[in-house]
């Protein structure tokens, strides 16, 4: 398989100047073509020069504490993200470092207690106070107070 000038040029641009690292299916053809053509070797030299120039591109290392800053910011972000009652309890558990199952158990217990409270409240009819009774009690109270005064 022979590689023509145009193909070689394109492969240089796409895969770089190290022909030994080109994809297997074109590597041998590339190496062979280069051996037999001074024109291709000139192209290769041009590509090598471009790559050398590109590698001199300015680069600044990140701050050494970048990771820590991200982690620190993530804690406050999550705090802000939690809203409402469930958010409050999640936050509570989060602050104490409790695992997720503890949060679930706590939430379920809370809901059960609330349901039980409502059930008892609605079921206990004898404990309800009628308006009439309330008025009687009040009158008795006022009358009693009047007696005292």
């Amino acid at each position, binding site marked *: 398989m022979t590689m023509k000038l145009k193909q070689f040029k394109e492969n240089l641009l796409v895969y770089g100047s190290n022909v030994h690292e080109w994809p297997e299916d074109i590597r041998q053809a590339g190496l062979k073509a280069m051996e037999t053509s001074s024109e291709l070797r000139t192209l290769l030299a041009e590509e090598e020069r471009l790559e050398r120039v590109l590698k001199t*591109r300015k680069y600044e290392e*990140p701050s050494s504490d970048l990771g820590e800053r991200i982690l620190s910011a993530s804690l406050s972000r999550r705090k802000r993200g939690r809203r409402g009652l469930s958010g409050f309890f999640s936050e509570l558990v989060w602050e104490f470092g409790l695992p*997720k199952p503890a949060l679930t158990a706590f939430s379920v217990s809370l809901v059960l207690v609330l349901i039980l409270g409502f059930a008892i409240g609605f079921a206990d009819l004898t404990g309800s106070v009628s308006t009439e009774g309330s008025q009687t009690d009040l009158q008795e109270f006022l009358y009693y107070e009047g007696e005292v005064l």
Partner: protein
Amino acid sequence: MDKGFSHLDDASLIQNIQQGSHEAFATIVNRHTNRFYRIAYRLVFNKDEAEDMVQEAFLRLWERPQLWNPSRQAKFTTWFYKVVISLCLDLNKKKRPVHLPEDMELLDRHPGQDVLLGIHQEQALLEGFIKQLPARQQLALNLTFYEGLSNQEAADIIGIKVKALQSLIMRAKTTLKEKVRRYLPGGSI
């Protein structure tokens, strides 16, 4: 801090993050911060802004880790490259367009002259050449040449076919080659 998670792969870490594990999040931040900073820096050309972009991307991951779905996206890094790149491109849109440094005009009037520019000036020129490339060509060059990603992975990140990516690389390098030949004929780089 992340002893229990450091052996896990990215997909497992994300699953833990989705369940609220901050340690898993710390592991993935420590593992990938430098890699994503590099591409951010190459795109925004500024250290502080690059750090901000990487931080913002990680915070979005922390707040909404369910956005990465392993069954839909091939690799976490491929998806996260897209997140970081998207933030950087948005930032670049808000910036003013790039103009060539004045030095370039001077050189252009005397092609082939033996002008020895300082390394910083040459780097500034090179930055200018790269900034002037269309955004997709810059991306293709950054991902393949500077990040060393395969053509397939770079194409996946940009969301194009491999052939289209190769075309972008060829156009970017051809333009740069011409500018280097023209403006940096005898420089130290």
